[in-house]
C-alpha cells in the first residue's frame, strides 16, 4: 500500500469488537527507524507531480477541502489565462505586423520625377538609365498612367485625366542586397535634378514604431497578468494557510517537516492554477479562432491571432500558471511556517 493514503475500505469498521488487550506490542515494538527523509522537496519534480501526479494521498488530504475557495481560485486563474491568451495574440500579431511593414517597405522605394513637361521624358529616361547601372537594383519600372490614376482615385474620383494634370512620373524600384540609396541620390542629383528618391523612411519609421510599441504593450500586459495572478494566488494561499492554523500546528506537533506541510498547500494551489488556466487558455484560443475573417476586418487587424505553429504558444499559459501557483504558494507557505517552531 502506498505510504500516504489509506483506502477507505481498509479503515477498520465499527462492527469489530474492541480487543481486550493491551498488548501494545504491534504498536510499541521497536521499529527500525530509518533516517528516511521526507523527500517532498518543493522543486521542479514536485511541480511535475503536482500537475500530473495521480495519487494525492494524505500529503494532499491534510488540507481540508475548501470548495468555494477552490472554485474562486480556479475561476480567477481561468480568467487570467483567457486574458493572457489575448495579450499573447496581440504581442505576436503586432510583432508580425511590424516585421511585415519593415520588410515590405524596406524592399521598395519610389523615385518621383518632377520637371517641366518638355524635360519630363528626358529626365525619366535618365533616371531609368542610372538605375540600370546602380548595383542592388533588382527591378525598376515606371508606373503607367492607369496605375497612377488608381493611386489618385481616392482623392480625385474615377476618370482622372492624368495626362491633363502636371503629375510627376513615378518609378517603383525593387531593391536587393548591396543597394546604396545615397549613391543613387548623388547620381540623380547630377543626371536628373528633378528626381527625388523616396525610400519610405519618413512614414515607415512611425509605423514600425507604433507596431513595436503595441508589441511591447502586449508583452507588458502578459507580465502584468502574470504578476496579478501571482498576487492573487499568494493571497489565496495565505488565506488558506491562515484558515488552517490548527492543521499546521498538529502537523508540526507530530513531526511534520516544513516542506511536507507546504507541499500539501503547494500541490493544491498548483493544481487549481493549472486547471483553471487550462480551461481559460482553451476558451481564449477558441475565442481567437472564432474572430471574424481578418481580411474582411480591415488592414489593421490583419494577422491578429496565431498562425501555424504559433498556436502552440498559448499552450504555455497553463504551464506558466502552474509555475506561478507553485512559486507563490511555496513562498507564502514557507514564510508562514518560519513563524512557527
Amino acid at each position, binding site marked *: 500500500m502506498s505510504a500516504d493514503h489509506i483506502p477507505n475500505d*481498509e*479503515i477498520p469498521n465499527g462492527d469489530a469488537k474492541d480487543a481486550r488487550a493491551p498488548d*501494545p506490542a504491534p504498536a510499541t515494538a521497536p521499529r527500525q527507524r530509518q533516517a528516511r527523509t*521526507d523527500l517532498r522537496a518543493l522543486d521542479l519534480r514536485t511541480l511535475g507531480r503536482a500537475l500530473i501526479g495521480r495519487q494525492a494521498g494524505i*500529503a494532499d488530504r491534510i488540507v481540508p477541502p475548501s470548495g468555494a475557495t477552490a472554485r474562486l481560485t480556479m475561476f480567477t486563474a481561468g480568467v487570467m489565462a483567457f486574458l493572457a491568451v489575448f495579450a499573447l495574440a496581440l504581442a505576436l500579431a503586432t510583432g508580425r505586423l511590424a516585421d511585415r511593414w519593415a520588410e515590405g517597405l524596406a524592399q521598395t522605394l519610389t523615385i518621383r520625377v518632377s520637371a517641366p513637361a518638355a524635360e519630363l521624358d528626358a529626365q525619366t529616361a535618365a533616371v531609368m538609365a542610372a538605375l540600370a547601372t546602380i548595383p542592388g537594383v533588382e527591378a525598376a519600372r515606371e508606373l503607367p498612367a492607369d496605375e497612377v490614376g488608381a493611386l489618385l482615385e481616392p482623392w480625385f474620383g474615377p476618370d482622372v485625366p492624368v495626362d491633363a494634370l502636371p503629375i510627376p512620373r513615378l518609378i517603383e524600384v525593387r531593391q536587393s542586397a548591396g543597394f546604396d540609396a545615397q549613391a543613387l541620390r548623388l547620381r540623380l542629383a547630377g543626371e536628373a535634378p528633378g528626381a527625388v528618391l523616396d525610400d519610405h523612411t519618413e512614414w515607415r519609421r512611425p509605423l514600425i514604431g507604433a507596431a513595436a510599441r503595441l508589441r511591447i504593450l502586449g508583452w507588458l500586459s502578459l507580465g502584468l497578468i502574470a504578476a496579478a495572478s501571482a498576487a492573487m494566488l499568494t493571497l489565496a494561499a495565505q488565506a488558506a494557510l491562515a484558515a488552517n492554523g*490548527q492543521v499546521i500546528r498538529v502537523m508540526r506537533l507530530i513531526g511534520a517537516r516544513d516542506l511536507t506541510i507546504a507541499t500539501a498547500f503547494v500541490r493544491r494551489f498548483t493544481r487549481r492554477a493549472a486547471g483553471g488556466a487550462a480551461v481559460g487558455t482553451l476558451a481564449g484560443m477558441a475565442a481567437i479562432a472564432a474572430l471574424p475573417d481578418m481580411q474582411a476586418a480591415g488592414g489593421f487587424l490583419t494577422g491578429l491571432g496565431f498562425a501555424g505553429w504559433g498556436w502552440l504558444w498559448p499552450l504555455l499559459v497553463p504551464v506558466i500558471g502552474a509555475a506561478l501557483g507553485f512559486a507563490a504558494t511555496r513562498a507564502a507557505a514557507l514564510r508562514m511556517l518560519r513563524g512557527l517552531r
Partner: protein
Amino acid sequence: MIEMRDVAFGYRGGGDLLHDISLSLPRGSFHFLTGPSGSGKTTFLRLCIADLLPTAGKLVAFGQDVAGLGRDAIASLRRRVGVVQQDAQFLDHLPVAENIALPMVLSGEPVDMQAIRDLLAWVQMTGHARALPPALSGGERQRAALARAVILSPDLILADEPTGNLDWDMSMRLLQLLVELNRSGKTVLVATHDLNLIRAAKQQVSARVLRIAGGRLQSAGAEL
C-alpha cells in the same frame, strides 16, 4: 533521554517562569510533573519537544542539544516523542484511523494497517476508526491521541493533563494505557495537577513525582 542542566525559560516580556531546572529522564522511567495551574508544567513539556527553547542552561534530547537543532531536526525529534495534550488536536476532516496513521506517513514508513487496528483495539476504539474527531467524546479523543502518539513506537511519551477533561473511570483507563507503555520500556512523563491520579498510578508503577513551585523543580514523592 532528556537531560536538563540549569535550564531557565521565560516568555518575552516576563520574568523567568522556570529556572535552575536540572533533570534527567532515563529510559524506561515514569515521571509525574505536578504543580498548580500556571506553574509551568506545559512550558516544561514544550521545552522537551523543542517547541520552546531554554533562555538559559542546556537541554539535551536524545543526545542532541536542542539549541542547535534546525527545523527539520526538530521535526525528527518530535517523531521520536509521542505527545498527548489536554485538548488533543486532530485533523478534524480525517477519520480517526487516518489521524493515527499520520506520524507513519510523515516518517515515510508504509502505513501498517494491522498496527492501526491493534492500536485502536488497545485503546478500545475499534468502533470509532471511521469517525471524525469532532464526533468523539473527551475520553475518546484522549485515547485516540494516545494511539497516535505511540504509532511510531516512540521512546518517550509526554502527556499534558491527559485526564483533565475526563471522569475518574476514564482517567483510570487512560492511566492504565500509560502504565502499560511504561512496562513495555517506554519513558513516560505525565504533567497533571490531579494528585489522586498520581496516587493511583503509584500503586501500579514506580513513578517519580516532580513538582514545579516558584519556577523550580522539586521532588514531591514524600508528599504522596
